[in-house]
């Protein structure tokens, strides 16, 4: 076991340059030939927030203080999860031509996709900070703790990404189904609505959703000047470990058959 892990680490260190190149490529290609380039990562969440807050503060009125911020914080978390897992899903398939020809640790493709989404996460978080400053929202010291829910978020996303990237190689139907899944997940995350409007059993379903816990923690430290609850941290930690373990396990179980199915 010990030697296995040291081989794993050696291998990872050997290919870390590749990881950097792959992340760089993802970002370069995404914004190539667009005039505003990387600014889009900043602009996108802002514009989405503008549209949604106009719609929701006129159509449905929720009793939420500073609704644009409430909305944007939920959206930053959810968009990261959905973008990262969606691109991780096709990571192996998109790199089929390489995997068929050169030996590479295959998880590197999934990790690079999640990491490039993480860079986008930083950009959209910057957008959130900008909106906070512009709307003269109070800035609290607890904001520093926002890294805690973000670490959980990236870990859970990585686990889900590894899992879904591995099984999609065999079951291509997932690619078509996944956008429906993320839509359901979006409505099961308190992004546009407050928890208080949820009736009985739906509330429990929403609470089970790992993203709910993360969004709640982000809002607690960013807007409400409160420390994340200990239970929240514990749940987030356990979920991160489970997601990573499950993702890695499924990935390792399946990676030798990738070449036969791509």
């Amino acid at each position, binding site marked *: 076991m010990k030697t296995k892990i040291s081989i794993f680490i050696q291998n990872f260190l*050997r*290919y870390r*340059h*590749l990881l*950097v*190149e*792959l992340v760089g*490529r993802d970002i*370069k*290609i995404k914004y*190539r030939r667009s005039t505003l380039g990387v600014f889009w990562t900043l602009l996108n969440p802002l514009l989405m927030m503008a549209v949604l807050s106009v719609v929701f503060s006129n159509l449905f009125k929720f009793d939420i203080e500073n609704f644009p911020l409430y909305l944007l914080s939920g959206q930053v978390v959810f968009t990261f999860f959905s973008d990262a897992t969606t691109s991780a899903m096709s990571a192996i398939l998109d790199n089929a*031509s*390489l*995997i*068929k*020809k*050169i*030996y*590479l640790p295959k998880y590197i493709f999934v990790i690079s996709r999640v990491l490039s989404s993480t860079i986008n996460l930083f950009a959209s978080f910057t957008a959130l900070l900008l909106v906070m400053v512009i709307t003269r929202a109070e800035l609290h010291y607890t904001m520093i703790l926002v890294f805690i829910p973000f670490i959980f978020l990236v870990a859970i996303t990585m686990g889900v990404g590894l899992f879904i990237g591995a099984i999609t190689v*065999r*079951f*291509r*139907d*997932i690619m078509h189904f996944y956008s429906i899944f993320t839509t359901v997940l979006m409505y099961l995350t308190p992004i546009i609505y407050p928890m208080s409007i949820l009736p009985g059993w739906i509330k429990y379903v929403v609470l089970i959703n790992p993203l709910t816990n993360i969004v709640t923690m982000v809002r607690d430290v960013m807007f409400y000047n409160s420390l994340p609850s200990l239970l929240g941290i514990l749940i987030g930690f356990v979920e991160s470990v489970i997601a990573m373990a499950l993702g890695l396990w499924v990935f390792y179980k399946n990676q*030798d058959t990738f*070449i*036969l199915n791509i």
Partner: protein
Amino acid sequence: MDNKDTIISIKNVYIKFNLASERIDNFKEYLIKTIKRQVSYDEFWALKDISFDVKRGDSVGLIGVNGSGKSTILKIIAGVLKPTKGSVYVGGSVAPLIELGAGFDIDLTARENVFLNGALLGHTRPEMEGFYDEIVEFSELHDFMDVPVKNFSSGMVARLGFSIATIGHPDILICDEILAVGDAKFQEKCMVRIHQLMNEGTTILFVSHSIEQVMDVCNKAVWINKGHLKMMGDSKEVGEIYRDSLKSHETDDSFDVIENDE
């Protein structure tokens, strides 16, 4: 390894492919078929009991008709495929030249691809910066380094791919039908480079349909027929016998390997 001059050792290697008799692409079908125990495969042994050693500094040509398993052997040595049975030992870094330009991202420029491809082969960015001029020089693509590779001709892609793969001092260089592209002048240049690498101690694995090329480049040859090792030895001897066998079997039966297998 008991003999430290042995760089590649292949022992009793078998490779089995499951040719699904009907393709199962979706999860529902898979589930139903598994429950009914109807998932049936046609087994196809692509390699059967292959054993051979390669000494450091040797250049070995793999010969055989189409579908005999030459590329499968290269894939095993490159670490892309794992043998179903048997063991493979490879004692050095492998630079795969299987299909030149496999690692290129066509949306990136030639310059960006040099660094991406270098990382795929395990070179760091500073290393690649050192090699950069040499690569441009050898590929003769001075004026095209900032052009996206999608605008390249196939010959230009091959030139760039060859120039990148042969930099540094790979212990083992795998060449699968690489010299079929590019003009005669560049082919000659490639041969010079391969000979130069050989002189520097690189082990070469060479697949070509031109038996003359194999006899010219290689000192050893391995003849694979229908997944079996038919003959191994001096490239001139094996090459002559192989050429004679092709003449005597003008109506070649190379394409029925799949049907008449056990």
